[in-house]
């Protein structure tokens, strides 16, 4: 069972952004979301991940299988690379496999404090979190920001060989070409009408 999104409407602070969105993502495949800035990619991913409820429609995926990764990596500057990863592994009841350090080029940085890493290295550490938590359904919001071309390839390889090949699935919002053979979904046609009925918190504001 993969991810099934049916007739979903999402809103940000009460204003509907996307409406009537339906798609499915099967296990072992990825879906790339495209669309101009402000169309609602982040809001859609947060809704899919369960951080906010959809205004209408349903999102189904296997229980306790989703992980969300956004612009902020959730890295603690005062902890080392190993400690950061070990924390997320323990929270998810798993352990840190050694292959993760190679896949995300963190082997030489293991004992560095995360606060001393460069922006790209931090991003790699943030993405490495996805490799230790063992979640099948990934919602990735601009995962390649501040990564160089080499790291982007490395991340795409990890996604293809370690995640999708093992029955995982991913929904990715990105502006660059990851080199995945994944279908793309253009969000512009689903833009909600400005006065569409939806989560109107305005009455209470």
């Amino acid at each position, binding site marked *: 069972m993969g991810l099934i999104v049916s007739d979903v409407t999402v809103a940000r602070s009460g204003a509907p952004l996307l409406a009537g969105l339906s798609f499915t993502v099967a296990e072992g495949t990825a879906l790339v979301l495209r669309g101009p800035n402000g169309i609602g990619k982040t809001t859609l991913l947060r809704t899919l991940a369960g951080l906010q409820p959809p205004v209408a429609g349903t999102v189904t995926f296997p229980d306790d299988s989703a992980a969300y990764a*956004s612009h902020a990596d959730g890295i603690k500057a005062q902890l080392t690379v190993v400690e950061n990863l070990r924390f997320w592994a323990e929270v998810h*009841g798993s352990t840190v496999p050694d292959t993760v350090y190679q896949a995300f080029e963190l082997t030489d940085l293991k004992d560095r404090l995360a606060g001393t890493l460069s922006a790209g290295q931090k991003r790699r550490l943030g993405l490495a979190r996805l490799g230790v938590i063992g979640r099948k359904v990934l919602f990735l919001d601009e995962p390649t920001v501040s990564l160089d071309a080499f790291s982007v390839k490395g991340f795409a390889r990890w996604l293809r060989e370690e995640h999708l090949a093992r029955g995982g699935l991913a929904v990715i919002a990105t502006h660059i070409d990851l080199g995945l053979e994944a279908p793309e979904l253009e969000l512009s046609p689903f833009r909600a009408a400005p006065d569409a009925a939806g989560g109107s918190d305005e009455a209470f504001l």
Partner: protein
Amino acid sequence: MIALLKRDLALAVRAGGGFGLGLAFFLIVVVLVPFGVGPEAAVLSRIAPGILWVAALLAALLSLDRIFALDFEDGSLPLLATSPLPLEGVALIKGAAHWITTGLPLTLAAPALGFLLNMAPGAYLWLLLSLALGTPALSMIGTFGAALTVGLRRGGLLMSLLVLPLYVPTLIFGAEAVQRGAAGLPATTPLLMVAGITLGCYALLPFAAAAALRVNLR
């Protein structure tokens, strides 16, 4: 949940974690009081229980806005919200970690500061007991306040206004227990009230804090 507790404790004692800040604040406030009210031993002895409790309360308040704000800023909070940990458990652990890093040191330091204020000899045991039973409630109420204001700019000030009135019952019964101890009266009743407030807070407030977090994370 243990992993989260371990991480929060590790973060607190590392550079910039703020461990000891509340303790230093407690110490300075209590040392300042004799300068303000004069050195008469009889006056100090009478106000010591109240001063120690109010100072402990303010010291606990000092670090409350860090409970969720830091995790919110670096993006850990949404990641924790989508992890297998229930948010109620996260709130409970955050409150417990705050108590271990502030309430517990305050409790242990209070008798030494009571000595500075010439507190009655009979009151030391009750001071220790009432703080040990009462400060966990301060941390948990504060966690709820922090959850309500997470994500707000300058939320710390608003949180103080929200949280301080909620501290009143704990303060009344906590200080009362020490006053009675100082006067040689039985102090079990106010202590039981403090313990009851603490247990009630830990039973109910994690759910309220989790609900507030869910709304604030939207």
